């Protein structure tokens, strides 16, 4: 109630948005500086190509290639937008996963492992049920739900360890990540799902279209012709809205957040904290699993099954997505799209300049780095540095989140 009278910058929400925007801007600028330095230091690139690279890093989503004179052209590009939405699907879901766990006071660094678990279950179901006898849509649904379930089970392991034995969830998640990476490789190694018909490629699993299973396009392909977009993005948005409603409109969500704010106080208030920690991690795992599931159910993506040497980037990008969105499930939709927009910009940079797509990963990493001390940026934005902080820390659970960050 008091908040309305406060100046714009003193408001918590406004400061969060501004802090995120500043992080994004600094991240992009850092990427630009790297491009510039590398460009000037490399004879084959030079200033001109550095300028191209910087423009693409910022506006790659609008890139339409080069004109006859070799200059970069910009404009509406439906392929880029469609691909952005397609690639946003998994990171929105892993972002939701991390945000959901964060709300409960858990840092879910295990989204990668849950993503892999979801992918694995989905591919096994989608490719094993014969599509001659079972309608493809039923297989799709089973595969999707199976992926979510596998993710939930995988996520509940660190949840159980945390709730029952008080083992730090970060450590448990790191271990389960690598266990998942090895188990998934193992399962596919002994499976008969390895793609042997297309002999030019090795180490890949069949696309789900091999069994006539693929996510429905729902008309999105007509909106963005030539792109990979499909109905998965709508599922992701629906799930984001569902998480938002559960977290901010239900008793269950309130209990989860109360556990996150102060586990012991929550127990004192009669909330079953152990059950809530496990459930929170299971739901986070289900969301991450859904991300992997939807990405590989698209029908135009192939899974490289030798995963034991590196974890999928989607899980870690989910951390960036959630941090930028300040753990707000609805904001995750937009920050997820922003991350995949960077991804598309990276592809444009790779295709149109002498640089490569990894520069956008550098930008994402810088953004995560800034998010680590976003609280400082927020305090700084609030003007009166430390005096502003206690005022913002009222007792409603939403604000309690911030208090928790300060305590860490």
């Amino acid at each position, binding site marked *: 109630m008091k908040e309305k009278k406060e100046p714009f910058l003193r408001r918590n929400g406004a400061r969060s948005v501004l802090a995120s925007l500043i992080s994004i801007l600094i991240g992009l600028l850092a990427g630009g500086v*790297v491009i510039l330095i*590398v460009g000037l230091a*490399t004879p084959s*690139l030079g200033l001109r190509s550095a300028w191209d690279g910087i423009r693409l890093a910022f506006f790659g989503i609008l890139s339409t290639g080069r004109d006859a004179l070799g200059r970069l052209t910009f404009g509406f590009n439906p392929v880029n937008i469609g691909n952005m939405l397609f690639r946003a699907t998994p990171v929105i879901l892993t972002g939701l996963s991390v945000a959901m766990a964060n709300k409960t006071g858990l*840092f879910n*660094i295990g989204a990668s492992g849950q993503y892999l678990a979801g992918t694995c279950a989905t591919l096994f179901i989608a490719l094993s049920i014969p599509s001659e006898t079972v309608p493809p849509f039923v297989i799709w649904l089973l595969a999707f739900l199976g992926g979510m379930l596998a993710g939930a089970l995988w996520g509940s392991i660190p949840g159980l*360890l945390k709730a029952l*034995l*008080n*083992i730090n969830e*970060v*450590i*448990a998640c*790191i*271990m*389960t*990540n*690598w*266990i998942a*990476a*090895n*188990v998934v*490789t*193992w399962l596919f*190694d*002994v499976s008969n799902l390895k793609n042997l018909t297309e002999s030019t490629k090795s180490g890949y699993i069949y696309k789900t279209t091999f069994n006539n299973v693929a996510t429905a396009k729902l008309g999105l392909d007509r909106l963005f012709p030539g792109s990979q977009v499909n109905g998965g993005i709508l599922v992701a948005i629906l799930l984001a809205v569902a998480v938002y409603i559960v977290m901010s409109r239900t008793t269950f969500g309130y209990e989860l957040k109360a556990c996150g704010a102060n586990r012991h106080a929550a127990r004192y208030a009669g909330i079953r904290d152990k059950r809530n920690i496990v459930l929170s991690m299971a739901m986070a795992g289900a969301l991450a699993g859904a991300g992997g599931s939807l990405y590989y159910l698209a029908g135009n993506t192939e899974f490289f099954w030798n995963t*034991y*040497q*590196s*974890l999928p980037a989607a899980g*870690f990008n989910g*951390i*960036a997505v959630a*941090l930028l969105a300040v753990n707000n499930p609805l904001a995750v939709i937009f920050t997820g799209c922003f991350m995949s927009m960077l991804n598309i910009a990276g592809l444009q940079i790779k295709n149109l300049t*002498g*640089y*490569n797509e*990894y*520069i956008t*990963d*550098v930008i*994402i*990493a*810088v953004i*995560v*780095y800034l*998010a*680590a*001390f976003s609280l*400082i940026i927020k305090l700084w934005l609030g003007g009166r540095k430390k005096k502003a902080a206690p005022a913002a820390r009222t007792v409603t659970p939403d604000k309690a989140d911030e208090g928790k*960050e300060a305590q*860490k």
Partner: protein
Amino acid sequence: MPFLIRQTLIYAVPLMVVALAGIFSERSGIINLALEGIMIFGAFIGVLFVRIVQQAGWFNAAYADGNWVALQGFVLLTMLAAAILGATFSLLLAFAAINLKADQTIGGTALNMLAPALVLFLIRILVNQNTLQMATGGAAGWFMVKKTMLGYDKDAALGFFGQTFLDKVYFATYFCLIVFVVLSIILYKTRFGLRLRSCGENPQAADSLGINVVRMRYAGVTISGALAGMGGYVYALTTANCSSTGDVAGFGFLALAVMIFGNWKPLNVALGALLFGLFKCVAASFSTLDINGDGIFALANLGVSTHFYRLLPYLITLIVLAFTSKSSRAPKAEGIPYDKSTR
């Protein structure tokens, strides 16, 4: 058997050093999840340094003469370069965690994301492919110590000891062992070590006794970065033929597991590293592993999948955690930014 011990050491020693890196940081109170990232960065710097020096032609004469002493000096120089740049890279974590009181888990994750991205970006610019290799030759040709170099005949029988520790080994491995022992002693038997550890247990008390907590934590993270950078290069040298791909296959996280398995104590960590190194070695070469040299491939006949050996270290760590969580010796103040006003 000599082969098994030799290979185990090759995996275990970098693991040991990087786990010690984790100990230094955590004992000073800063959680260092960025071990993996710093290793990746150190490996890149090391390989890049080797390339540049090779291209400048400084050690080509030594290579042509077979002057292996000079070449081992070259390795040491490279390790030094990787350590210095690794320490520099870790300053990013130190600055965020100590000066800005940032969330250390997120800061470490950011570094883990930054290192492979930056390294792959630069490798692609430098060589237009995803792997940075030596300019000429390979790790075995340039840097491996063979028995002929030590004055033995090509066909000489060295006995068990010689065969295990003198032939086809890397001097870098032994150097890392020395570093491990020396730094462990520093951490436990010197005034500096005691002060550093006190900052991880109770920084308020340490501060009240006139210990500069900020400086000690910087020291912890910087030593950690130097060790992890060096370990990253040694890993690349001994197991990846001195090449960098923006990836150390989760070795940094394995080191983290070793550190937890060893309960933050150097001796236990050394044993844990040997155990996990053995698993790594078995996973990599179990199908051709002839333990006793009698032509029986016992492990291959066991029929256990290589994937099982690969996931075993992580699984064991989880189980150990589950059983020892009550008696964990994790530094009390790790992960909590030091704030003078809470004294």
